[in-house]
């Protein structure tokens, strides 16, 4: 059953520094998140992956498109409806150290939701509930309750926040880079916890820039680039036979323990600009006649020029307002058009090259 449906969501941010230029953070992103499923949303910085999470949590209103939960467009929720929505949809964010107020004990985050959602629950029932939630995230209540944030490790803090979501009747969890600030030794514990929660029916949107972590936990994968989906489908298919050049580039750059980065497949590029004389000079001066490293950076150069194109598009977007874009009347709508997705094999969608 689909728990959450993201339909054609676009988001334009208006920059204050560039004279009100519009930056397309999301370009018509659509996907469905089912109960008991982990989707990993993978993208580099600026790809819009965090914005999707924020749109789902209604922290950001999309410029166009809808997010539907249980058949209701979440934009229509009033105050009471929104409170009920948050009972089912919760987020945990990247930095556990700044999610707590250092002045108060860490378990105050539980008291805050008790005031709003469980005003009539007795102390005893409430404590039982907390204990059950802490057990679910494999924390020992005695170790963490009554402690201040600085007395807890990053992994403990992050698990306390997941337990907070579990206290509510949570159905969808938006996990935005929740393990990137944790040490390697505790990361896996949080990942395994997510898998355990998934098996009990929770839908999880796992936002990350780390491909190996995304691959480890998720059932389905979405690769984002500059706000548009470039590849999406079953994780085994996307990682097993990546079809889009961008996905391949990302995968080839992932550092692996047992395999060295390969230089050859990226192919040579000329160093841009009028410094071509310098470029030859560099290539010639490489010791042992190896391939010059500039060549290996082809992927990065490529990404930069792509980013520049997107910026140029922003300038065009400047001429039209967000509303005009949403209605599809303005020429800016063109700028928002994402590359078209086609189905490469069942449950594996690939975008046209952009």
């Amino acid at each position, binding site marked *: 059953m689909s728990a959450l449906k993201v339909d054609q969501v676009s988001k334009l941010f208006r920059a204050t520094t560039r004279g009100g230029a519009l930056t397309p953070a999301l370009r018509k992103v659509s996907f469905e998140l089912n109960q008991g499923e982990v989707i990993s949303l993978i993208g580099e910085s600026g790809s819009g992956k965090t914005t999707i999470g924020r749109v789902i949590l209604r922290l950001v209103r999309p410029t166009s498109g809808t997010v539907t939960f249980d058949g209701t467009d979440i934009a229509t929720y009033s105050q009471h409806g929104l409170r009920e929505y948050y009972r089912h949809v919760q987020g945990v964010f990247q930095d556990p150290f700044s999610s707590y107020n250092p002045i108060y004990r860490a378990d105050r985050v539980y008291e805050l939701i008790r005031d709003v959602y469980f005003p009539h629950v007795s102390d005893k029932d409430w404590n039982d509930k907390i204990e059950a939630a802490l057990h679910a995230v494999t924390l020992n209540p005695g170790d963490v309750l009554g402690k201040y944030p600085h007395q807890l490790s990053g992994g403990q803090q992050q698990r306390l926040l997941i337990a907070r979501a579990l206290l509510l009747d949570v159905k969808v969890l938006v996990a935005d880079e929740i393990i990137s600030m944790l040490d390697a030794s*505790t990361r896996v514990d949080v*990942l395994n916890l997510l898998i355990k929660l998934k098996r009990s029916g929770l839908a999880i949107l796992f936002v990350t820039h780390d491909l*190996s972590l995304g*691959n480890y*936990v998720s059932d389905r994968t979405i690769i984002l680039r500059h706000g548009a989906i470039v590849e999406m489908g079953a994780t085994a298919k996307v990682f097993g036979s990546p079809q889009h050049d961008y996905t391949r580039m990302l995968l080839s*750059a992932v550092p692996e323990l047992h395999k060295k980065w390969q230089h050859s497949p990226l192919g040579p590029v000329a160093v841009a600009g009028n410094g071509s004389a310098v470029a030859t000079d560099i290539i010639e001066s490489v010791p042992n006649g190896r391939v010059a490293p500039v060549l290996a950076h082809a*992927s990065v150069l490529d990404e930069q020029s792509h980013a520049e194109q997107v910026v140029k598009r922003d300038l065009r977007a400047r001429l039209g307002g967000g509303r005009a874009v949403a209605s599809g009347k303005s020429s800016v709508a063109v700028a928002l058009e994402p590359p078209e997705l086609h189905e490469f094999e069942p449950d594996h969608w690939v975008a046209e090259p952009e």
Partner: protein
Amino acid sequence: MSVSVENLSVAYRSRSGDVTAVDGVSFTLADGEIMGLAGESGSGKSTLGNALIYLDPRMKATGGKVRLDGKDLPISDSKAMRSLRMTEVSLVPQYAMSALTPTRKIGRLITDLLKSHRIRDRAEVLTEMKRRIELIGLKEDVLGKYSFELSGGMRQRVTIIMSTLLNPSLLIADEVTSALDVSTQRAVGEMLTEFRDRGYVKSVIAITHDLAILAQIADTITIMYAGRLAEKAGTDTIVNEPLHPYTQALIASLPEVGVRHDETTLTGIPGRPPSLVNPPAGCRFRDRCPFAFAKCTETPPFEEVKPGHYVACWKVSQEVAK
């Protein structure tokens, strides 16, 4: 031997007494070696790196000796260190992304740096710098930009260029790849090895918590745990045949591309490292170690069990002795 560190201890002053963040660390670094230094947060890896250049006034070296190219490095004398920074020892600080001042253009920043180090032949250094900027795939116009106009990866690369401009003997690169995307990580990692190959830096200590990056760029890997060295060996040995139980657990907890949860379940390391205020006697990994036995209440020596492979573990020492 380009760098040799003997029995170095570094302490921070705190209200609850001195915290010995680096405790009796000894290692050597060959010419042209990139040594990866890995460990959990709070293991003292950054402190060790910073101590070799002496930057933090709260920190004091409480013992030990550092030699660089056969000369003693005056690590507890900030004034004497000043003339050696940039030229002999250089640092790419953690959060290098925010190390560039926002009020100066990059070019101006670099000229200021050269002036303050009393470099006479600035024109020559600047020409060389432009060559290096081209080499790493940036354009010369970055010099006319402010730091906030550059992306994170560009900033990181500019900082490395600045730190290596005067061809230092030893470069300490502290978490240079941590905040970057995979493709930029790769560019920065390859930049480090390339700079070493070309002799812009003689040897590098690359500090990070990411073992996978070290497997790509480092020649040797040193694992630190709670202020002490746990293991040092060649990269392939650490990755494929680690001996210290901590290293083994650390490697086992890393998901690789292609590993899925329904096929392989990875396990973390239970527990936390001990507090460095009054740390327990003996092996500091004891409480989390699945192999701990009676002998572990004594401090294990950091000894060479195989050529070039150093381990601080009683279990390993005993097995080797047999």
